[in-house]
């Protein structure tokens, strides 16, 4: 059984795409990541390899994760020995795509940009090109399109878009390389799952086109966020309770997050029966070619600022509503972060940081269970339970760099800081103003819940501050 399957796969791989592209390049990156546990610090440089391909405009498309935190990016043509220095022109961490540019005109000489195709059909054959494990020449693997689906993009951790699953081998180093069909790019290889060796994923063209269109104005806005949490209407009872007539289908809206596309347009309890006129099934999916994907895909096709039509079943009738595609800025704190330095304030050895995913990740992979439960509540549950507080940036006192001026404080970091010198903190910047505005003998810190309070002699703290920065090798005391 297993052997037969392997034999089939080998047979499928035996017929290469006749139009092997020459415009696939090796992307060589030297990166330096930030350290969220010591937020003023960058980690040692590390090198990594990926793939990319030339598109029109002399640009190279690759994955965001290939070039994230890059300090130097080199691209090399397989037919040449010397690499070219490239710059990162745009990065979309929410769709794991990036565009590079090489200023040296020699780079593109003789190369043809690869044209973009369309979403391939399930069962059709595709061929990947790239540099798995680096290497001199382009490596090619072949396979079939296993399915088209909506799936999480692991790079950002929270975004989900269209993906194509293939059995063509996609390995480390393939990332950013093109997946081709009939001479056209049908996707960008980007992720796999350990333990599922015969399953790779590529980013299909609609997502790539969205990214390229987005950056045309020189700025990446990102995919819009609907802000909708929906539940499949797979329960006949629930459908009846919503009064949905026979022949109508859709997903019921549980929550509408503030500031998303649906905010102020869609209401909890609405049933989304169509998006852009495309009917939505009871499980929240739409038909896309011969695949079923979540209706989020239709929202994904819009750029921020574009309108989208949403048909809902509400109060016993169908209503078509128009919404403007919006992006929820605060969701950045929920994503894995790349290319941005951690924000922090150090004052007299007290390290303040805003609560975000990267901070929670310093508690280890199991942070939803193992991190401080107040932090977890704020990060994962507060907005849904208390939507009026959605915009609050939670300030965490993450650690104390011990010095005689602060060493006798007794709280257990990390703690959520509620107030400093009587000022209720709405964000990290308030830490600076609340400390600077104090003329009393003591700075007073109030922690959330039952974590208590602390005080710090202002004169001693001011004197200790520069010493602590020096002793602990902190180049600057803030990054707001």
């Amino acid at each position, binding site marked *: 059984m297993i052997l037969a399957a392997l034999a089939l796969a080998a047979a499928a791989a035996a017929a290469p795409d006749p139009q092997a592209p020459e415009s696939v390049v090796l992307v060589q990156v030297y990166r330096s990541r930030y350290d969220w546990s010591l937020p003023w610090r960058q980690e040692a440089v590390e090198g990594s390899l990926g793939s990319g391909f030339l598109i029109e405009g002399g640009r190279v498309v690759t994955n965001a994760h290939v070039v994230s935190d890059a300090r130097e990016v080199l691209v090399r043509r397989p037919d040449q020995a010397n690499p070219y220095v490239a710059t990162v022109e745009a990065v979309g961490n929410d769709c794991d795509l990036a565009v590079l540019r090489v200023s040296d005109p020699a780079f593109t000489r003789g190369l043809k940009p690869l044209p973009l195709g369309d979403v391939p059909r399930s069962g059709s054959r595709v061929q990947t090109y790239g540099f798995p494990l680096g290497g001199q020449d382009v490596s090619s693997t072949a396979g079939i399109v296993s399915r088209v689906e909506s799936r999480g993009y692991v790079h950002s951790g929270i975004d989900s878009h269209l993906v194509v699953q293939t059995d063509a081998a996609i390995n480390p180093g393939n990332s950013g390389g093109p997946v081709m069909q009939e001479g056209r790019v049908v996707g960008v290889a980007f992720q796999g799952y350990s333990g599922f060796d015969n399953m790779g994923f590529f980013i299909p063209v609609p997502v790539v086109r969205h990214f390229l269109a987005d950056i045309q104005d020189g700025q990446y806005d990102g995919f819009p966020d609907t802000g909708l*949490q929906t*539940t*499949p*209407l*797979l*329960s*006949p*009872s*629930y459908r*009846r*309770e*919503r009064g949905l007539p026979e022949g109508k289908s859709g997903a*019921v809206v*549980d*929550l509408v997050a503030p500031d998303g596309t649906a905010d102020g347009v869609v209401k*909890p309890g609405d049933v989304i029966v169509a998006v852009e006129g495309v009917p939505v099934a009871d499980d929240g999916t739409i038909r896309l070619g011969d695949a079923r994907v979540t209706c989020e895909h239709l929202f994904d096709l819009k750029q921020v600022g574009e309108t989208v039509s949403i048909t809902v079943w509400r109060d016993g009738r169908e209503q078509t509503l128009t919404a403007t595609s919006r992006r929820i800025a605060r969701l950045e704190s929920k994503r894995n972060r790349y290319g941005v330095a951690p924000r922090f304030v150090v004052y007299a050895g007290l390290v303040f940081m805003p609560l975000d995913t990267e901070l929670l990740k310093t508690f280890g992979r*199991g942070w*939803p*269970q*193992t991190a401080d*439960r*107040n932090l*977890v*509540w704020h990060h*994962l*549950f507060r*907005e*849904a*339970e208390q939507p009026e507080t959605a915009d609050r940036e939670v300030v965490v006192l993450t650690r104390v760099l011990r010095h005689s001026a602060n060493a*006798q*404080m*007794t*709280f*257990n970091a990390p703690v959520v800081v509620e107030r400093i010198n009587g000022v209720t903190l709405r964000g990290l910047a308030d830490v600076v103003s609340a400390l600077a505005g104090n003329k009393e*003998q*003591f700075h*007073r810190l109030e922690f959330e*819940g*039952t*974590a*208590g*309070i*602390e*005080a*710090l*002699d202002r004169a*001693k703290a001011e004197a200790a501050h520069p010493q602590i920065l020096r002793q602990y090798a902190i180049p600057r005391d803030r990054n707001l």
Partner: protein
Amino acid sequence: MRFPATGISRRAGGCCVAPPRPPARCAEVNSAALVVLSLILPALVLSACASASRPATGTRAVPAPPSFKDRLAAGIVTVRVTGQEWNWKTPWAKQGPWTRTMTGLVVPGPRILVASPGLGNHVLIEVQRDGRDPRTPARLALVDHEAPLGLIEVGDPAFWQGLAPLPLAERAPTSGPATVHRWPRSGQLDSASGAVRLVRAGRHGLSRLSLLTLDVTTTMEGGGDSEVVVAGEEVIGLATGKSGDQVAVMASPALRQFLADAAGEGYRGFARAGIGWQDLTNPDLRAALGLTSAEGGIRLTRVLPHGSGADVLKPGDVILEIAGHALDPTGQFDHPLYGRMSFPLLFTDGRQPGDALPMKVLRDGQRLTVAVTLKRMLAQDDRIPPYVFERGPDYAVVGGLVFQDLTGPYLSTWGDWSRRAPPRLLVAYDREGQEPWPERPRIILLTSVLPDPANLGYQDQRDLIVDKVNGKPVGSMDDLRQAFAEPQGGFHVVELVPGQAMRRIVLDAAEAQAAAGRIRAAYGVPAGP
């Protein structure tokens, strides 16, 4: 613990509520302590007389006083407890039974005193003497899981022949040699040598009480099942736990207090503070609060409304003195007998619920004297009871949806629960678990779904916190049952706390009712809830 976990202990934290800390046996004896002594002494004397006279009945010779070893053997028995836990994942079923052997101390009454959390969920108690059969059936006369301590009665008078209580030390030694005793199956008393390392305020089993505790090193293998610890021919305590080569021993003054309480009318139990606090070691904070350098004190960060002093103390108060004992900035005081002890011991040591505990506090710059009335706080008073004994899960099955209140035993079904249970439930435990909410005394969960056509579409939902049912807030299983009695327009609508996998579940009320028998049969749920 060798028996299935029936509860969970709270994580140790810097400012946990009523953490294990100090007791003070008040030198300025309060009336309760005097009562204790006057009750217990005559009882001991009477019972000692009875046992001394017994050997004389069979012989004319003047009996030599029994050796201490014989007296030990006559004062220590074996207690076998068979128990059974409910299965909190399928709450209508019980798990396989367990049997645990522990040591009992003969006390006046006569009864048998046991210090162990293993008395919870018992179905059968048997006692043995001399480490040998026969086993005599016995019953639990009194149990205080918050200690945890239990008194066992044996109906058969023959069992008591030749047994006599050992003296319980009035005060615990702070150092020196000690021996640890139990009956193994061999029929010879197992006596291990050891030494008292230190005296402290400690917690035992699943309790949150602070009781006088000894740490005793011992060569005994295993242990921690209520073995009798002796020094200088007096019992100084019962072992409740073992780690490494050391047993934690509930000290005799706490045992004496329990026995005196149990002998009187209406058991009062032990009090708990029900407060959270922070140390005040930071001189800047002390100065900012207006404390003088001569003062100590700890600052309250939380006052539970069902705890001692809820009406008197306030978060932010600095407790300077309790019953005349000055607290240092870490909450330690000078115990006249045992040295530095953490202050929660003052809530239990020589005092009982209902007693007044005078305190000096600093509040808003004023130094006040207040009197706290001590209160007993039971596990079921917590919004999420950390342990549950003698009852199974309270559950309801409606249309295949299984509902249950959130408890420690339910969380412990995840094994290493604090790393494995669903994050929202862990958040509930830490943030909402102790604070009572009168309108919502419990957190009600949709724990699982028993798949059936009546609940099509919801099969994968589990461990969701319920907010409302049919428009009515749900804060107890009774609320839930009442709310399900009134469907809305033919539907049951379950609203879940937002931020979880699902917000709303709708069932057809008639379908759910029609499916009830079918679901019970398919999943082996007995008729009932």
